[in-house]
């Protein structure tokens, strides 16, 4: 009997060229990081513009090359392979280092901006070109933030390239960050208008409806300032309920918002780290709604104080506003919200802290057509949906009982539906009538998890 030995086809040559390009990407990333380091400590010896801005450029190119090489050869179903096996995405040593560095950066940015002088100077030409004024720490932050959304936006586009929903949604957050949260505020300054972010609204941008801001916009911005106040008020009180009624919270949280934009792009590799336990949910409601209440109270106090010209409440309301700004605006949204990405997941701020998310969530739960439908009795309880829910929702709990998922915290990112190996979930808008009713093809549990 003739015996043939089949040798397995070697894919080595192709693999090696991928590998070489990956290493080239990593080399560029390292050079870029070194440049940024030199800019921040060695500004006296060499121009920080060259090292800092140049380093940022090289870092961007390297990151894009690396991302391109590491994502495009993975098929859609392979994209989450090794998430819980790699150090960086499973709270390993490198995740802690990244977490500490990010947190440290926020501490320096908020409380010791002088230490970042070299880097701030590095952004000077860009700041002059865009805004016609000197760079400061917030411009530095805005530049890094926007770059992170754009570069990691490419990552998300490649990772979810077979889904039109994710392509359009990712392009949307990239567009709003670059256009509405970076270029437009810069251009406003260039034309000596008040800096204004058209994609942020009260109660997230809580001071936009504070009497001081309103007063300043109307006084300094003339007609444009009046429009800004009008725009902000309309979005907070009219457009938000209407859009949320038709599309759910997602129109803002995973399509427009800058915090959401960062979470959906730079934060995407960390989405599975969110805590799904019932205890986490209890913390969530115990923190986020009081914060919303706090913003509403602060705003009310400030207006009462303003109308009464300080006679009624005196300094108390100003203290309220300062307290909020420090603990929530700085500590929570920045330091913990982004710094802890690699440890607690990418939506810590959105889930536990954001007053806008709380407001949108209440609307979504009670006055919306949005829901995630479960397809009959098709769920196999595998857990991919719950694992990759960045908001820590136990999606599987509902899916395995054929129930629709209607949760205040759901930001409608749609990843649960994407990672489901049986295509069981669909984000959709439908009539409110029978919105909570499940599939008739499966018996369900009477136990409530939200209690």
């Amino acid at each position: 009997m003739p015996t043939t030995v089949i040798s397995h086809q070697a894919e080595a040559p192709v693999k090696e060229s991928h590998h070489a390009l990956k290493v080239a990407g990593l080399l560029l990333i390292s050079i870029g990081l070194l440049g940024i380091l030199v800019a921040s400590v060695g500004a006296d010896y060499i121009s920080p513009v060259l090292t800092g801005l140049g380093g940022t450029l090289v870092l961007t190119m390297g990151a894009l090359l690396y991302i391109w090489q590491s994502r495009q050869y993975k098929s859609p179903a392979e994209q989450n392979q090794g998430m819980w096996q790699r150090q960086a995405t499973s709270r390993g040593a490198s995740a802690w280092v990244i977490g500490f560095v990010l947190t440290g950066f926020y501490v320096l940015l908020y409380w010791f901006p002088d230490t970042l002088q070299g880097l701030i100077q590095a952004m000077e030409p860009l700041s002059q070109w865009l805004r016609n004024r000197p760079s400061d720490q917030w411009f530095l932050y805005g530049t890094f933030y926007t770059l992170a959304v754009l570069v990691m936006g490419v990552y998300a586009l490649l990772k979810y390239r077979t889904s039109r929903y994710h392509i359009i949604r990712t392009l949307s957050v990239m567009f709003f960050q670059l256009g509405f949260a970076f270029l437009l505020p810069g251009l406003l300054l260039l034309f000596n208008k008040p800096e204004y972010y058209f994609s942020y609204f009260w109660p997230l941008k809580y001071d936009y409806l504070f009497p001081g801001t309103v007063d300043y916009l109307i006084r300094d911005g003339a007609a444009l300032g009046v429009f800004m106040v009008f725009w902000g008020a309309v979005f907070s009180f009219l457009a938000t309920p209407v859009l949320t009624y038709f599309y759910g919270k997602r129109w803002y949280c995973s399509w427009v918002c800058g915090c959401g934009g960062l979470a959906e792009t730079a934060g995407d590799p960390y989405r599975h780290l969110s805590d799904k336990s019932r205890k986490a949910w209890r913390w969530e409601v115990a923190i986020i709604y009081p914060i919303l209440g706090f913003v509403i109270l602060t705003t009310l106090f400030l207006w009462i104080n303003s109308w009464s010209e300080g006679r009624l409440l005196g300094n108390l309301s100003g203290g309220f506003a300062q307290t909020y700004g420090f603990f929530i605006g700085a500590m929570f949204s920045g330091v913990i919200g982004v710094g802890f990405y690699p440890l607690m997941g990418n939506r810590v701020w959105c889930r536990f802290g954001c007053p806008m998310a709380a407001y949108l969530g209440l609307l979504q739960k009670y006055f919306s057509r949005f829901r995630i439908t479960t397809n009959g009795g098709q769920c196999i309880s595998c857990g991919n949906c719950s694992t990759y829910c960045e908001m820590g929702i136990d999606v599987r709990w509902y899916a395995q009982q054929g129930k629709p998922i209607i949760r205040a915290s759901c930001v409608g990112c749609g990843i649960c539906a994407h990672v489901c190996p049986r295509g069981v979930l669909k984000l959709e808008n439908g009539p409110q009538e029978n919105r909570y009713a499940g599939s008739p093809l499966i018996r369900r549990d009477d136990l409530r998890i939200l209690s």
Partner: protein
Amino acid sequence: MDKISENEHLVIIGNGIAGVTLAQRVRQQSDCRITLVSAESRLHFSRTALMYVYMGHMRFQDIVPYADWYWQEKKIELVHDYVERVKTSEKRLVLRDGGPLPYDKLVLATGSRASYYDWPGQTLKGVQGLVSLQDLELMEANTACTQQAVIVGGGLIGVEMAEMLRSRGIAVTMLIRDKLYWHNVLPAEEAQLVTNHIRQHGIELLLQEELQEILADDSGRVRAIRTRRGQELTCQFVGITTGVKPNVDFLKDAGIAIDRGILVNEFFETSQTDVYAISDCAQFRNSAPGQPMMEQLWYTGRLHAEALAATLLGNRKPYQRGPWFNSAKFFDIEYQTYGTVPAQFTEQHASLYWQNEAATKAIRLLYDKETAKLLGINLLGIRYRHDLCHHWLQQGYTLHRVVQELPAVNFDPEFFQRYEEELLRQYYTRFPEQQPPVKHSSWWDLRKQFGLFSNSTSC
């Protein structure tokens, strides 16, 4: 039969989807004592998700659907032990570690394991199936130094195993008895599409080929296999995925009638009073014509459990499965099926079939040539609404009625391209006398019209 009473003890052996669903449904309407016994794992986990743990998408704790608090709140006792014997005369179980466990009603939901066909060398190190948690742990150990693997069998577990091994860069060859992958279930077009897709993922498929023997190295580990046609393939791992057989060995002296599985009637009653068997380990004595003797799917496990729960709760009704459905995933391509689409068609069968140019998506509507009655639907890379497909099949829709509601059935995500028009074009060419409706109803209209939702609103 009377409803199980409060002071009775319901013992369920096996905490897979069948055992767990049974415990949950009985608990919903009864305060009887319920104990779940499992040797495999203390907590119920999703068997279908084992592959994702190996590939690093999830950790083991992520594939556990119900945490400890759930079982405590539900007052369902969990026993992590192996049942050595069932003493039906004394109504108690003999456990390996714990003391004897008495029962009033016993449900056997012990599942199945890989079946082997007496191949020489099948007990060598590096040869295994993939059903249980222990199989996964073994596979983790067995593949630590594996560069080449051979998978025997062209079914759903086979392709899962292939995907797992590829995720670790292991070269995989599959031996498939048929002319195409899963051609004993899929019609030729679908089977061809999936076969090509698997090959695109770097899997070598040896079609119409079977395992002859497994060859050992000096240490008693697999070093190669030889096929029927005499090819020798070097490999350090052999995956056996040629089907499963019921776990019934421990029942030898229990006085329960067994053939391949535990013999049951349409109420899941075994030959012993107060002993029932469901899911993979059960075998119907008189299965309905055209229906299988054994149903070994996740979904049927759950359906068996729901039916038996009704019986135990005093609502004795025979098991009627309703229209068949199943789903799977072949690397990137999702598969759904509703109703009955056989692999081989007869003269009575006709179908509308469409697939895209890239051969990654396909739709088949199979109908009876004479009556135009819808028989089944196959979908690759496209999602349809289970509730509506079930309704069509249950109500005996003709193809003509189906077509009227076709656009409402799509379940793909928002912004995805829709392909129903291609099918409709085919349909109106084949049936030129049929008129398109003035307006297609939306899913929400049909859902309301047919009442396709539960009355439960607990969320």
